[in-house]
């Protein structure tokens, strides 16, 4: 197992209130696999990956329990120095906003080379050659001429490619991508997704991909975790999730997707909004919005129900039906 998160609990403390951002989340990514985390804004996707890399702002956040196992080693036990050796070299991350994720005062060459030189002792000429190769790999045309450009001279898609090049600089075993295409327009988004698929095949790395776009999930994922309000609602192979969703939330999400059959009709939407993590409802966190709610949902936190083949869903009501 490459990366495995077990029963992770991260709470935010502010103004005397406790926001349970992650309430016992477990997921895993195997070698060479693409895993998608799906969920609405504020459900804890980003918090969970920031916790993996231990760059969660603390305070206000605090890790209340659980494990982050990376090749069997619990990352939460490491000190800052040991963590720095893992960040970027073995686990790399790509951020959502390519516009602001590059330092505006350095050339892209400086920044990619820094990603290499922080972890490896190579001379500057070799770093430069690798930098050019990386830019080629991520599909930047004539990289030799782009090296001395500053981030503000590049377009959004190109900047995101540079971010990907930086993440790949040290051949990490797993790349975490936090909504890398959300800020890009649709054609660029398709190009970047293709790039991810291509790179993953070439480099045999795992990819943990965070998104709220089910279209993206269908496009690249091997397995999917659907998150809701700090817990995993449903998990399984991408075909299972899309064809036989076993959780009312997943069903709602899929029903909200536009498609040809639904042309001309009002698009479905899940009623209500995501609960404030500081005031989560009792019992199942989804019950105020759930069409299949019964009495026990309001008082009892649901257990995972196994449908076989790695398909699990946190809804006993549908399981018993």
């Amino acid at each position, binding site marked *: 197992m490459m990366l495995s998160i077990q029963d992770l609990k991260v709470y935010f403390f502010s103004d005397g209130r406790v926001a349970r951002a992650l309430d016992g989340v477990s997921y895993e990514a195997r070698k060479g696999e693409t895993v998608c985390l799906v969920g609405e804004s504020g459900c804890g996707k980003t918090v969970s990956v920031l916790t993996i*890399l231990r*760059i969660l702002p603390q*305070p206000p956040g605090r890790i209340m329990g659980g494990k982050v196992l990376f090749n069997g080693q619990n990352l939460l036990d490491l000190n800052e120095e040991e*963590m*720095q*050796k*893992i*960040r*970027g*070299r073995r686990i*790399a*991350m790509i*951020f*959502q*906003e390519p516009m*602001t*994720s*590059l*330092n*505006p*005062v*350095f050339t892209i060459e*400086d920044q990619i080379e*820094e*990603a290499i030189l*922080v*972890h490896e002792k190579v001379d500057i000429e070799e770093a*430069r050659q690798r930098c050019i190769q990386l830019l080629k790999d991520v599909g930047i045309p*004539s990289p*030799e*001429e*782009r*090296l*001395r450009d*500053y981030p*503000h001279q590049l377009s959004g898609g190109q900047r995101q490619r540079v*971010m990907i090049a*930086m993440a790949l600089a040290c051949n990490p075993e797993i790349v975490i991508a936090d909504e890398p295409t959300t800020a890009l327009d649709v054609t660029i988004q398709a190009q970047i997704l293709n790039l991810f698929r291509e790179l993953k095949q070439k480099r045999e790395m795992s990819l943990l991909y965070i998104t709220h776009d089910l279209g993206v999930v269908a496009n690249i994922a091997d397995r999917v975790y659907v998150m809701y309000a700090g817990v995993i609602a449903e998990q399984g192979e991408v075909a299972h999730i899309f064809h036989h969703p076993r959780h009312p939330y997943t069903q709602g999400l899929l029903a909200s997707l536009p498609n040809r059959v639904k042309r001309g009709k009002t698009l479905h939407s899940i009623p209500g909004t995501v609960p404030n993590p500081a005031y989560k409802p009792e019992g199942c966190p989804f019950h105020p919005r759930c069409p299949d709610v019964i009495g026990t949902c309001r008082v009892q936190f649901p257990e995972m129900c196994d449908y076989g083949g790695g398909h699990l869903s946190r809804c006993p009501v549908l399981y018993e039906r």
Partner: protein
Amino acid sequence: MKAYSENYFQKTGMERPLAPRETRWREGWRLLKRNRLAFAGLVIFILFFLIALAGLFLTSGTKPVFDPAVVRLEEKLRPPLSNAKLEILSSDRVPRLGLYLFGTDELGRDVFSRMLQGAWVSLTVGFVAVGIAVLIGILLGGISGYYGQNAMRADQIFLGAVLLLSGGLVLMGITFFGVVLLCVGGVLLVFFQWVKKRASKGVETAWTRFLWMRAISIDTLIMRFVDIMLCFPSFFLILTVVALLPASIYNIMIVIGLTSWMGTTRFVRAEFLSLRDQDFVTAARALGVSNWRIIFRHMIPNAIAPVLVSATISIATAILTEAGLSFLGLGVPPPHATWGNILSDGKNFIFDAPWLTFIPGVAILIVVLSFNLFGEGLRDILNPRLRERS
């Protein structure tokens, strides 16, 4: 940069031109040369420093080339560019070239020689003092802005206070108590370690709870210290310290620097607070870049602009502060000239001899202005987003 197609290179068999590798220094130099105002600022600034350096040698020794100390009471308050009256002066008191280039002061001393003599002191006071202030400001402001939210435990504060106090006592010459306090600090350190060890075994007493109390954040600690420093009228603070220390020009530079870093600290802290939450800082952390490297390589170049602006203005203030100290007899001892004390002496004769205030004033202005222009160019070099504007 002209974009050629792949085909072009294949057809011509030409090597694709590689963007030449350029170090940051060389790139900065190229940009500086392009920015005429900044370049002029740098040239003037270097010129002044060379003049000051020359003045150091030309006005010292037993028989200096330009003697600033010769008193000619019969020739007092002569305007600039007036010729010396050779018939009434003995030959060893005639100014160089027989000309008072910048006029004479109320004692008939040649202002040009005095300006030369004072140039080095004034320039170094300005730059060393501001350099110290900016260094302290960036360091404290950076720590406050970056690590600010981390709380300090009561034991850390306690230990820090004891060690600082003992260090201060030793420096002030009260060695015995200093060393005693240092030993107390050592004992405390051992005691705290012991408490910590017991606490890790699960023994929790009122002591551990007191010592592990998250008392105040680093940010609060530093910023309240800034407030305290700002509360003192800084001139009197300088006077106190100068009175305690032997009066030498280097002590004055250091003291002026040590009492004028608060503004820079606030600037840097404010910049760091906004930069810390920027995505590129998080991205750098996710790449495994260490905290110090993030501060120095990623954040300071982004935060430097307001610091440079305030620093250029502080230079003039530092030169004038030195003048004020000299005026009160605590700065450079009187026969030695500095731009500041030429200026403050001249203000008594401002209607009879305006050049006595005008000339040093203009000299300070030019230095500050040239440094300001250079600083602006430097800011553009450090921040590529600003380059397009000029």
